[in-house]
């Protein structure tokens, strides 16, 4: 089925049929009846389909996944209801969902562009009169709000027929050489997204920051914090309306990263405004915490319940209902908090503060003018040494809190490495990141299992009072036990992963690079 395909741009003033006429002088062609389609394209906020070279078009109640370059159909399904956003689980089971699953993960699809196209099929025939290359003239317009139509550059799709590659190459050569057509640099959808004023390729929450070793530390801090603030602002609308759970997640990560930088580079800020902002960001973290925790609980619920086996998996349904009810209540509180004047003022003031920072007096900002590579190295070295110290003190008798503390520090170190890794040799940073990741995995599992078990214990009474509650309570008992086992397992793995993280050669390299 898969055939080769490409798209060419038609020059201004050349319609699809004009191109067909010119081609007809060179090869036998038949032009079929032109037709129109109205398509709505769906995409994730962060542009995952675009990055995978795909596009999801909805037309006439069907969703069709196409190759963005060739428009070859990859999979299709009925479009469920008149949904404004689609999660994987909203799609009917089948090829389309299977294909999208690894690409979308938890991200929702929302409409990004409506495109109306007039298509003219032009078939190139061989000496038997058989179709050997399919051409399609496309004249499209993006439909903006208020039914305004914005014309897009016309195109010619060139699609091969399986087993007729020679003809494909021949026709493509004619079109490019004889007719002088250029290859389209990107799919028509990207053109539409652009004229509609949306970001082509979606909005990423990645940092993507390039720093200069000699740069002033306060400027470098502003660059990173500005980017983090952009991420917070970009993800706020989606977090408020719960388009998918990743908006809130990305927002929280950006808040946490900002806090880590506020703390670690405190010497570039003046103490008093910094204290106010740190309080404000802590509040933001607290405000969004319960909703995120419940999001995670519900996301992991399926897996957790599946571990119980068929019968008991259904028993925990009351728990799920309870979690969902709580989520609704917590989310309401969070939305009010995020919309409050207090939060908006925090964001506004923080932005203003960052804008002015590099020009502010330096008397109470001792690190402000130092090279960022020096300041960051000190911090990375210090946090690493601190972790080694905490970790060494942990033995089988240590309280859970000791491991939790270590994990917190680990997150801090990871963020520092994310911000500043480009300033140091990769052969130093890489093993550090990888052993840190190994350690954090273990610590994360250790803590997550505890949090989950705590939650189950905490809601026990409430679940028991619900319909079907006693069966649920028993199943939850099994779950708590299982979680405790898994936590124990993680604890058993701690020593090994810490030993790698704190191994002598690594300590020596860290000392040499970061002081």
């Amino acid at each position, binding site marked *: 089925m898969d055939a080769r395909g490409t798209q060419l741009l038609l020059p201004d003033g050349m319609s699809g049929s004009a191109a067909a006429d010119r081609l007809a002088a060179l090869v036998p062609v038949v032009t079929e009846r032109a037709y129109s389609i109205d398509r709505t394209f769906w995409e994730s906020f962060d542009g995952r389909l675009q990055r995978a070279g795909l596009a999801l078009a909805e037309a006439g109640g069907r969703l069709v996944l196409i190759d963005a370059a060739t428009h070859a159909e990859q999979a299709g399904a009925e479009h469920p209801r008149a949904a404004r956003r689609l999660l994987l689980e909203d799609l009917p089971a089948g090829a389309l969902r299977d294909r999208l699953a690894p690409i979308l993960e938890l991200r929702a699809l929302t409409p990004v562009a409506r495109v109306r196209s007039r298509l003219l099929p032009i078939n190139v025939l061989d000496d038997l009169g058989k*179709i050997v290359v399919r051409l399609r003239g496309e004249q499209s317009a993006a439909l903006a709000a208020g039914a305004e139509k914005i014309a897009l550059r016309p195109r010619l799709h060139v699609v091969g027929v399986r087993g007729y590659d020679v003809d494909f190459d021949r026709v493509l050569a004619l079109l490019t050489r004889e007719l002088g057509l250029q290859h389209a640099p990107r799919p028509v959808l990207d053109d539409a997204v652009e004229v509609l004023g949306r970001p082509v390729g979606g909005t990423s929450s990645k940092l993507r920051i390039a720093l200069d070793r000699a740069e002033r530390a306060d400027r470098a801090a502003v660059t990173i914090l500005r980017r983090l603030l952009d991420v917070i602002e970009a993800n706020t609308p989606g977090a408020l309306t719960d388009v998918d759970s990743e908006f809130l997640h990305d927002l929280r990560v950006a808040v946490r990263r900002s806090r880590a930088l506020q703390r670690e580079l405190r010497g570039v800020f003046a103490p008093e405004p910094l204290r106010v902002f740190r309080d404000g960001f802590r509040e933001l973290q607290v405000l969004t915490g319960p909703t995120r925790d419940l999001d995670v609980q519900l996301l992991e619920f399926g897996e957790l319940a599946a571990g119980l086996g068929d019968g008991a998996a259904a028993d925990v349904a009351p728990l799920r209902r309870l979690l969902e009810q709580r989520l609704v209540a917590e989310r309401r509180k969070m939305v009010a908090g995020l919309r409050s004047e207090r939060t908006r003022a925090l964001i506004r003031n923080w932005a203003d503060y960052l804008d002015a920072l590099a020009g502010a007096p330096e008397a109470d900002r001792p690190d402000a003018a130092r090279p960022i590579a020096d300041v960051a190295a000190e911090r990375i070295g210090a946090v690493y040494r601190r972790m080694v110290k905490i970790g060494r003190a942990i033995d089988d008798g240590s309280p859970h809190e000791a491991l939790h503390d270590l994990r917190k520090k680990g997150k801090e170190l990871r963020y520092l490495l994310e911000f500043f890794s480009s300033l140091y040799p990769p052969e130093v940073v890489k093993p550090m990141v990888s052993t840190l990741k190994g350690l954090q995995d273990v610590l994360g599992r250790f803590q997550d299992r505890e949090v989950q078990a705590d939650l189950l214990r905490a809601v026990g009474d409430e679940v028991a009072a619900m319909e079907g509650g006693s069966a649920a309570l028993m199943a939850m008992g099994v779950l708590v036990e299982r979680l405790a086992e898994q936590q124990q397992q993680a604890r058993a793995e701690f020593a090994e992963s810490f030993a790698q993280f704190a191994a002598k050669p690594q300590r020596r390299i860290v000392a040499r690079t970061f002081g």
Partner: protein
Amino acid sequence: MTPVVALYNIKGGVGKTSAAVNLAWTAAEQGARVLLWDLDPQGAASYLLRIKPKVRGGGSRLVRGKSDPAALLKGSDHERLDLLPADFSYRKMDLALDATKRPTRGLQRVIAPLAEQYDYVFLDCPPAISLASESVFAAADALLVPLIPTPLSLRTFEQLQRFVAQDVAGPRPRILAFFSMVDGRKALHRKIIDEVAASSDGCVLQAAIPAASDVEKMAIQRRALAGFAPRGRAVRAYEALWNELRPRL
């Protein structure tokens, strides 16, 4: 698993190729991705689709697993219908299969790697019982047998059923038949069809293909019926046949 349907009859000229091409086209038209393998060295199906009856390396290399079948496929004038063309060397398919380790698996070996790209595979078989036929029985999930409504053709159909039931080892295809080239003006045709309808155990499908000049014209037009007589009764008959067959695959 992708169903494999073989158009099959020991007798020649009963409408196998006409049915293979039109059913495959109908299935593609309804949205399925379809592969048609023209197994007849005469290459009638390839001819009807305007595709040269030529397979690089020939049938022998193909069934011995020496050619990549995917590289031999040809797209038809329908975007979702591909053809594995006929080749004159298929007339020696028996010998080619006999030279392999497991002759009856020969066709299956070719189809298996292709099947996942398609929703249905059709085989247009030449007439005759032979080693190739046994390979067809092994590869097909269903044998679809066109029957001209004469007492003789019913007998041959019963023989085929018996043969497959007794002599085919391993999983057997189900055997389904339909009436082909039915002339409603002939009393004999009507009588036989009525009798079969009364006594049939469900292996003869209700939908029948009428004798129609449209079908004969395919050879002149070199297209599936939908390409030149899209509203004729013959097209509708093949559609009805496909709609009845599809849920039984």
